[in-house]
C-alpha cells in the first residue's frame, strides 16, 4: 500500500510548489434540474464533481487504478473469505468538527445497503451482511459477508461509497446538511445551475483553493468559450476533436486513458442475435481503429470486445479482433441472415453513444447489413434493457465488479441478457461465484480468463474501444495529471485537493 501522505508531489514539478488561494471555477456538462448532492449517490455528471468536494471513501484508487490505503481507512483486511475488518485513521473530523467513528461507517454502509434508499451502490452490497456490521471499537468495524467476495476493497474505494455522518440525508435545500470529511464544505447549491464550496479548515490533508465553484453547462461550446474567455478554470469532457484547436488559445487538455467503454449491446436471447453467428458477424464488421479515430479523434485504446482493461485478470492474450467483412458476410449467410435489417437504439446518454451507432451503421453497409439508428429520448425511461440491439455506456471498473453490475442474470443493468441459459457459456455464473470465493490471485485470474473467453466468443457486447477522458483547463491550474479512474479531471483533482493555481 502507498503511504498516507497526500501526494501533490506526483504533480508536475514545473508548476512549482502548491500555493493557497483562489476560487476554482469548474464547468460541467450533463447536468440539469435533476442535479443532486448526496455523499453516496449521483444522477448526473456534476453530481460526481459535487460529491467529491465533501465526501471521501475508506479506500482510494490511485491514478493507475490500483487500490491504496490513502483514504479514511488505515487498513481494510480480509479476516477470512467472509469477513473484513476496517480500521479508520484517527483524527479525521467531519466538516462540523465531529470526529469520524465506526458508527458513521456502519451508518454509511447500511444506508447504501438499504434498497429503499435507491442509492447507486446498492447492487454492490449484495454480498455484504449489512445488518450484522459490528463496531469493534471507536475506529474499527467488522464487515461480515453473506458469501465470499474478493471485490470488497474495490467496492469500498468506489466514489459512491462516501462516508457520511450518522443521520445523514441527501441535499434538500439546506447546504448545512451536507457534512462530509472532504476538503470543501457546501455553501450554496442550485440544481442545474451552480454550487459553491468553501474550504474546510479542519481538513485532515492539504487543500489549496479557498473555494470551488461548480457551474452547470448545457452545451460544450459554451463551456469551451467560457474556458477560453477565462470565465472558468477547467471544464469536463472537452470534445476529443477540439484538443488541438484549444491548445492555441492558452488552454490545456488533460487526457486520461480510462477503462470507460461504450458497448453495442446485442441481446443474446432476442432475434436476430440469438444466433451466435450473427453476433460474431457483427463483431467482425467493426473497424475499431476507424471508430476510435472518428469518435475519439484517436484518443483512446482499441478494445477487444472485453471490458475492465486495468483489471489484473484482463486477458491480453486473446487475439485482437480485426474487421473481416468477408468472414462476416459468410457467417451471416450461413445463419440465413444475408442483407439483415435491424434497428440500433441509442440516446444522448453519454458523448459518443449516438455517433458510435451512426458510424457502426455506416460500416455495416459494407457487409450488406442495413442498420437504422433510432435516437430515442425516452430510451432509459421505457425501452432500456428490453431492446435487442442498443448502445450503452460504462465507466472504469474491476472485472468482477463489472460482471456483477451487467453480466449476470440478476445484474441490475444486463443489456445483453448474458449468460446463455444452456450450452456454451451457461456456466458463467458459476465461474463468477468461484472467482469471488477464490483468494488466490492467479487462480482467480484463470477463472476470469475462462469467463472472458466465453464473452469474447459468443458474448453480447461489441466493444470497439476504451475511451479517454479529456478535460480542458487553463494553464494556471497546476497539479493535474492523467488518471485511469472513472472521474473526470483525475478524479476532479482528487476531491479538489491536489490541484492549485500556479
Amino acid at each position: 500500500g502507498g503511504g498516507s501522505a497526500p501526494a501533490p508531489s506526483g504533480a508536475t514539478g514545473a508548476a512549482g510548489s502548491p500555493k493557497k488561494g483562489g476560487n476554482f471555477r469548474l464547468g460541467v456538462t450533463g447536468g440539469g434540474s435533476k442535479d443532486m448532492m448526496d455523499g453516496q449517490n449521483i444522477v448526473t455528471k456534476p453530481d460526481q464533481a459535487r460529491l467529491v468536494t465533501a465526501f471521501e471513501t475508506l479506500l482510494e484508487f490511485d491514478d493507475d487504478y490500483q487500490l491504496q490505503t490513502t483514504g479514511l481507512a488505515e487498513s481494510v483486511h480480509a479476516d477470512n473469505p467472509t469477513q473484513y475488518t476496517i480500521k479508520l485513521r484517527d483524527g479525521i473530523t467531519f466538516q462540523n468538527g465531529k470526529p469520524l467513528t465506526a458508527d458513521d461507517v456502519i451508518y454509511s454502509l447500511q444506508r447504501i445497503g438499504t434498497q429503499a434508499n435507491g442509492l447507486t451502490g446498492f447492487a454492490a452490497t449484495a454480498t455484504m451482511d449489512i445488518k450484522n456490521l459490528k463496531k469493534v471499537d471507536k475506529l474499527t468495524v467488522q464487515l461480515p459477508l453473506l458469501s465470499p467476495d474478493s471485490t470488497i476493497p474495490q467496492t469500498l474505494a468506489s466514489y459512491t461509497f462516501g462516508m457520511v455522518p450518522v443521520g445523514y440525508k441527501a441535499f434538500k435545500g439546506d447546504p448545512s446538511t451536507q457534512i462530509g470529511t472532504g476538503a470543501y464544505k457546501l455553501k450554496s447549491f442550485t440544481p442545474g445551475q451552480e454550487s459553491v464550496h468553501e474550504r474546510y479548515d479542519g481538513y485532515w490533508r492539504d487543500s489549496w483553493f479557498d473555494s470551488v465553484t461548480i457551474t452547470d453547462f448545457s452545451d460544450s461550446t459554451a463551456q469551451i468559450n467560457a474556458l477560453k474567455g477565462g470565465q472558468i478554470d477547467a471544464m469536463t469532457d472537452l470534445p476529443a476533436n477540439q484538443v488541438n484547436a484549444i491548445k492555441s488559445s492558452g488552454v490545456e487538455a488533460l487526457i486520461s486513458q480510462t477503462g470507460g467503454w461504450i458497448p453495442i449491446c446485442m441481446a443474446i436471447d432476442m432475434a436476430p442475435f440469438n444466433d451466435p453467428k450473427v453476433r460474431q458477424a457483427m463483431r467482425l464488421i467493426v473497424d475499431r481503429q476507424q471508430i476510435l479515430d472518428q469518435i475519439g479523434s484517436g484518443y483512446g485504446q482499441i478494445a477487444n470486445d472485453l471490458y475492465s482493461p486495468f483489471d489484473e485478470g484482463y486477458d491480453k492474450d486473446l487475439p485482437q479482433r480485426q474487421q473481416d467483412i468477408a468472414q462476416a458476410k459468410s457467417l451471416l449467410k450461413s445463419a440465413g441472415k444475408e442483407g439483415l435489417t435491424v434497428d440500433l437504439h441509442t440516446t444522448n446518454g453519454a458523448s459518443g453513444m449516438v455517433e458510435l451507432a451512426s458510424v457502426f451503421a455506416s460500416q455495416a453497409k459494407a457487409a450488406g447489413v442495413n442498420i437504422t439508428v433510432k435516437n430515442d429520448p425516452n430510451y432509459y425511461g421505457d425501452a432500456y434493457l428490453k431492446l435487442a440491439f442498443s448502445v450503452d455506456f460504462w465507466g472504469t471498473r474491476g472485472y468482477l465488479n463489472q460482471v456483477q453490475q451487467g453480466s449476470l442474470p440478476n445484474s441490475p443493468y444486463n443489456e445483453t441478457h448474458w449468460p446463455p441459459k444452456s450450452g456454451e457459456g451457461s456456466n458463467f455464473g458459476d465461474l463468477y461465484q468461484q472467482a469471488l470465493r477464490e483468494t488466490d490471485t492467479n487462480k482467480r485470474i484463470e477463472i476470469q480468463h475462462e469467463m472472458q473467453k466465453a464473452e469474447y466468443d459468443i458474448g453480447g457486447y461489441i466493444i470497439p474501444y476504451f475511451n479517454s477522458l479529456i478535460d480542458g483547463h487553463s494553464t494556471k491550474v497546476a497539479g493535474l495529471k492523467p488518471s485511469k479512474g472513472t472521474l473526470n479531471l483525475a478524479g476532479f483533482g482528487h476531491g479538489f485537493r491536489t490541484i492549485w493555481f500556479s
Partner: protein
Amino acid sequence: MSQAETAPALAEGVDVPTPSVRSTALLARSLRLWRTRIGVLFTLILVLIALLGPLMAPHASDKFIAKPFSSGSASGTVFGTDYLGYDVLSRFLYGGRGILVTALVSTVIGVVLGVVIGLVAAYARNALDDVLMRLMDVIMAFPQIMLALVAVSLVGAKNSVIVLAIALTTAPRVARVARGAAQPVVERDFIGATEAMGLSRVRILFGELLPNILGPMMVEATLRLTYSIAVIAALAFLGLAANPDAANWGIMIQKNQVALASEPWGALLPILAIALLTMGTGLIGDGIARTAAGIDRERGDA
C-alpha cells in the same frame, strides 16, 4: 370612396393590356425588381446545390477521410473534415436535400391548412370565425420553436414529427394573415354576386376568394418557409434531428460549430447556405410584396 377617380386602365393606356393582378403575372412582374431577381438567383443556386449536390460530391457522405477537423491540406480535401472525419464538402453537398424537403413539406402543409382555416373564418363572419381564431390563438400562444421542441422531445425526432410540429405551428400564423387578407375581399360585391347565383361555399372559397389573396399568401409562404428552415436548423442545432449524424445542414452547424474558430468550414458552409436560402426566399417575398403594393397603389384599392 369614389372609385371613379382611379380609372386604372386609363392610366396605363387601354391598348397596352398590362394584366397586373394575377398571381403568375404578379410573380413575373415582381421579377422586374432587382431584389426579386437576386432572391430567385440565391434560391435557385441553393435549391440546385441541395438537389444536385449528391451527384457532385467528391466522396460518399459517410466515407471516413481523416481525423475529425483536419484541415483541407492535411486531409487532401477542399474544406477539411468534420466532427466525424467526413469530407465537409461532400457532407455539405449531401446535406441540403433533407432540410429543404422537410422545410418545404411542412411549410406547404402549414400554409394550405392555414389558408383553408383563414378563408373559412373570413367567409363565415360569425361565431365559427371567432371559434377558429381563438383556437389559432391557443396554438399561437406557444412559440413555434418551443412547440416543436416539446413535440420532438416527447415523441422523438422523427421526420414526421418535425414536419407535423412545424406545419401545425405554421398554420395559425398563416390563418391569421389569410383571414386578414380575405376579410376585405369577402366584403366585395363579386362575392355577393356569386352568392346570389348560389355558387357552393367551397367554390366561393377556393374559386373566388383564394385567387384574390394569392399575393399576400405568396409573401406569407416565403416568410413561413424562412421560419421553417430556421426552426428545423435550430432543432438540429439543439441536437433534435431525425437522424442525429446524417448529412444535414442543421446538424452540420450543431456538430461543427465547436470548431468554428479553428476549422470553420464545416459550420460556415451550411450557415452561409441557410442564410443565402432564407435571404433568397425573403427577397422574393419582399419583391412580391413590393410589387403587389405597387399594383394595389396603382389600382387605388390598397
